[in-house]
């Protein structure tokens, strides 16, 4: 993909505290944001085409809302709260408002992330209590049955995500590892461990094939991993050191054009591009937006339907929308 710049096309204000996460609905029409002010905000394009607030869900949780995960095919999302609850919200097609349709309890303390599998039938959550839970969602999204409590991490689990091509689950932790889980012999079990970060692994993102993974860590490194073909084994492909000057809090790998965006504690957004030299594949920094936010960039997310569009948020309480040009 050819591009010269990443241009900020909208600065969305409204959150009163740090914004932890931004996420796009499956159809790319709604952007969610959430954070320290306990609210969830939804943004969409107004009649004139400008991005504006579409809905505010104040006091969505009793404490920080850490992340929002959109269902892969429906206008439904899960929100992970520091109040130990995962809440499920569904759009009411008549009023077009989002309603809290389920509250999932089970974790002992802060829920840090939630993720759906590719069909939207499974939901995974993770917490400071070191565990990852896998839930089966009822068709009406009102009921969630626990299929497994996955123990293995030695410390807080910061992030969970399913492989986009199959139902294997990955989790990133304060214990510096990424672990892989799968449904084997009728139960969810750990099937692999990715070791390479020297500190907390904050976030991860798959490429479109599901055979490569990018992870960002508190060690300021971005690591690319590749699956050994036909196995559950993952090998480090490349460690990008020296590019980021503070922790890498967020990674988003575009499923359409393949650019990898990172959000960093040095206030910058960077884009990494895959280059090929014969058989040799490597990733290089292609562009940097310094001072993308006036504080840590906590999250970056490519729009799933508009490939050139990226959303970001930060400790400056602001959400931004960017366009590749």
């Amino acid at each position, binding site marked *: 993909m050819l591009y010269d710049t990443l241009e900020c096309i909208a600065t969305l204000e409204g959150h009163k505290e740090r914004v932890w996460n931004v996420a796009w609905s499956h159809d790319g029409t709604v952007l969610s944001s959430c954070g*320290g002010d306990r609210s969830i905000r939804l943004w969409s394009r107004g009649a004139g085409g400008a991005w504006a607030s579409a809905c505010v869900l104040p006091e969505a949780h009793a404490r920080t809302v850490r992340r929002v995960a959109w269902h892969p095919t429906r206008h439904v999302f899960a929100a992970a709260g*520091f109040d130990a609850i995962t809440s499920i919200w569904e759009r009411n097609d008549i009023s077009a408002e989002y309603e809290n349709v389920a509250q999932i309890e089970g974790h002992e303390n802060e829920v840090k992330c939630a993720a759906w599998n590719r069909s939207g039938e499974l939901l995974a959550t993770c917490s400071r209590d070191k565990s990852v839970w896998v839930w089966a969602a009822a068709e009406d999204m009102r009921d969630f049955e626990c299929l497994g409590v996955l123990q293995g991490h030695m410390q807080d689990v910061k992030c969970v995500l399913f492989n986009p091509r199959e139902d294997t689950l990955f989790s990133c932790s304060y214990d510096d590892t990424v672990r892989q889980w799968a449904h084997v012999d009728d139960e969810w079990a750990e099937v692999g461990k990715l070791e390479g970060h020297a500190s907390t692994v904050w976030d991860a993102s798959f490429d479109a094939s599901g055979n490569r993974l990018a992870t960002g860590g508190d060690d300021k490194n971005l690591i690319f991993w590749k699956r050994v073909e036909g196995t559950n084994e993952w090998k480090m492909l490349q460690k990008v050191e020296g590019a980021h000057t503070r922790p890498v809090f967020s990674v988003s790998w575009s499923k359409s054009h393949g650019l990898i965006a990172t959000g960093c504690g040095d206030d910058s957004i960077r884009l990494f591009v895959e280059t090929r030299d014969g058989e040799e594949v490597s990733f290089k920094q292609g562009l940097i937006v310094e001072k993308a936010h006036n504080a840590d960039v906590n999250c970056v997310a490519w729009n799933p339907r508009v490939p050139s569009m990226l959303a970001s948020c930060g400790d400056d309480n602001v959400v931004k929308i960017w366009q590749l040009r």
Partner: protein
Amino acid sequence: MQNPAPRVFDVASGALRTFTDADLEGDEGAREPIDSVEVYEMIRRIRDPEHPVSLEQLKVVDAGLVAVDDAASRVRVSFTPTVSHCNMATLIGLSIRVKLLRCLPRRFKTDIYLTPGSHSTEEEVNKQLNDKERIAAAMENANLLGVVNKCISDTD
């Protein structure tokens, strides 16, 4: 009690430097330069969680262990617990972090570390004190916030 009879040192009672009105107020929105003396001034009166004395009086904090890069907007503070197994270390570090969060202009990024070799679980404490997600969660815990507020109240 971790250290029932810590050594208490004599310290200056007034401000380390007289700040002019311009230093304290400045122009609204103007970039106000900060140096290590100012940062030390912000943290020296923080109270020890266990004793009615300041971190400065216990030499837990020291002016020489505050580094400021104003141009890059970075602050680094190291502190030294009075005993190396002190389980108050995290709480002391948290108090320093919260005080600086409230006093420093928002452009600053702060790293807080134990003085190398000063603690038996140094790496663990350092990691915790610099994980902003854990700090955010801790600050939503009313009991913990109460204890921290007690350590830093009236310390300006």
